[in-house]
């Protein structure tokens, strides 16, 4: 249990970045964590998280299993009770800014036998924009269709969702998040168990969203691709080990602190680092 303690970096890299660079449009940062602690059954999963995520960043969250990656996202969305600290979205508690947050859950978290079509699932992303008793209008359907087109799933719009491959299911979730038209996106392992074509399609969409000034937090499992896909990385293992631009953070010693003594992963990483540098 002391692994993270002795190994964590002295100061997260983010804290050393100049403050004025962040605040170009005088808007509070999209996401702020302050002294966040979350525990399951009295066992801490996240401990003293202090973070500010600047606008327009594509952030990959990496860390070993059980490092609290998904928990961080869920805590940010207000899905979990916090043991201490707070999270702010654009300077306000999450409840006031729900519409600005989009979410791609882990694929296994829903029942794919549910009697809805692909179109229905994507339209769910529009529900936040609809009032009580309002049904999706033509405008919403057009948006949903555009989003499906973007992930190349439009031909499948009328399919029942159980008749999709894993990669297609993931694209449907992505289309639904796009239909939410949010400013921050949380994605929980969007690359888990998808085919290569879907993976590159998702990466392209992530970058497009970033270009449009959206902030994205993506939980990622695969170290070698992490370096290619993300321009900033958050190394997490119960505490923030490091947060900053990928080239500054994707370093052997920091990754070692994150992954502790897991030698198999370490050797993989060492290889990846050697290849790149």
């Amino acid at each position: 249990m002391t692994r993270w303690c002795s190994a964590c970096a002295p100061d997260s890299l983010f804290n050393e970045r100049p403050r004025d660079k962040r605040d170009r449009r005088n808007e509070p940062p999209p996401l702020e964590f302050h002294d966040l602690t979350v525990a399951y059954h009295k066992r801490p999963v996240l401990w003293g998280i202090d973070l500010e995520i600047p606008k327009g960043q594509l952030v990959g969250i990496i860390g070993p299993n059980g490092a609290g990656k998904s928990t961080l996202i869920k805590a940010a969305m207000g899905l979990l009770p916090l043991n201490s600290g707070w999270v702010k979205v654009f300077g306000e508690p999450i409840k006031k800014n729900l519409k600005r947050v989009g979410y791609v859950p882990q694929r296994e978290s829903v029942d794919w036998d549910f009697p809805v079509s692909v179109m229905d699932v994507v339209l769910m992303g529009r529900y936040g924009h609809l009032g009580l008793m309002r049904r999706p209008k033509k405008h919403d359907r057009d948006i949903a269709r555009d989003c499906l087109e973007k992930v190349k799933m439009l031909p499948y719009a009328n399919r029942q969702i159980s008749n999709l491959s894993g990669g297609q299911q993931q694209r449907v979730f992505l289309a639904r998040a796009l239909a939410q038209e949010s400013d921050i996106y949380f994605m929980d392992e969007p690359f888990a168990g998808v085919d290569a074509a879907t993976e590159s399609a998702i990466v392209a969409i992530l970058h497009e969203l970033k270009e449009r000034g959206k902030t994205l937090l993506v939980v990622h499992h695969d170290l070698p691709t992490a370096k290619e896909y993300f321009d900033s990385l958050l190394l997490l293992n119960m505490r923030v080990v490091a947060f900053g631009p990928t080239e500054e953070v994707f370093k052997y010693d920091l990754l070692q602190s994150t992954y502790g003594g897991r030698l198999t992963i370490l050797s993989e990483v060492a290889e990846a680092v050697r290849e790149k540098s």
Partner: protein
Amino acid sequence: MNELIPAFEWQQHVVAPWTTGLKSTLWIVLMGFFVATACGLLGNYLILRRMALVGDAISHSVLAGIGVAVVLALQLDTPTLFIAALLAGLAATLIIEIIHRYTRVKQDAAIGIAFTSLFALGVILISMKSGKVHIDTECVLYGEVALVPLEQFKLTLAPALAGAVDKLPMSEVYLRGNELVMAPDVIRMGFVALAVALLVWIFYKELLVSSFDPALAFSLGINATVVHYALMALLSVVVVSAFESVGAILVVAMLILPGATAHLLSARLPVILALTVLHAALGTLMGFHLATWLNCSIAGAFVVAGMGLFCLAWLLSPYDGLLAHWHRRRNRKARTAQRKLARTPRARETENLPKPLPVPPQLPALWARSSIG
């Protein structure tokens, strides 16, 4: 055998109830339909949320509510019992939730604990006072829908209004001179069924999202916990109103059967909800005539008829049914055989091979599982 199953006579068992016996038939069938509709619509969401047995828990806990009312020596009239049973139903859902959340017991086990213990509590409380009050335990468990038409309330109408009502179909059942005569239980259940249908329509989005993906529901500003408890409260109201006619045990069947049947037939929630209502209507009608024929418990016959419809759907469902499976397998075999034959030099015996059956017409997109592929 002949003594057990009476001969089926069309005139006596199907026509007569709708002519000479219309007065009781209409109320009984309406009651069954309202119960099955209200239960079935809610049941759909229970099935989707994998909480089918929560209805079981609530219906059994009703006995605890009645027991508490008996022990507290409250007036045993309908509103008091209704409220007591409702509170017991809500207590059951709370107990399930608390056990599930604060211990390591899983939800299905928690349901098992909650409903048996509340049921036992009800048995204890009622047996403690059994000398002083009369409670028909059989009625609580199995229900007696045949008694529904006996209780009546009268409402005097203005002559002009009575004249207008007289022109409605089957007015001889509920109009006597200037008086409107109704079975109060049926009217109450009708309101409950209407309320359920309205609520399902109004909160369609909220129910759908929170059942499919609670985390997304939260990020859309829909509180899945609130939806859960609202659903449970509504379920308690429905179960408590229904148990008088179909009984605590058969309510569970009414909750699950219509929805489960509809799930076999479609993969679109709006269609499923419509099919649920259709199942409720057909099952009630068939059940009623079954009961007239066999002279048996009407509530039991409702459920057996519903089960018959379920089996029929299982057999005939366009994409999941046994026939469809058989049809597909036969076609596949025939096609493989022909392909094999085409590769062999001697292709003479083609005529003797099974020919592929004609492909059924494409189902409408709303109904079918997929519009392509």
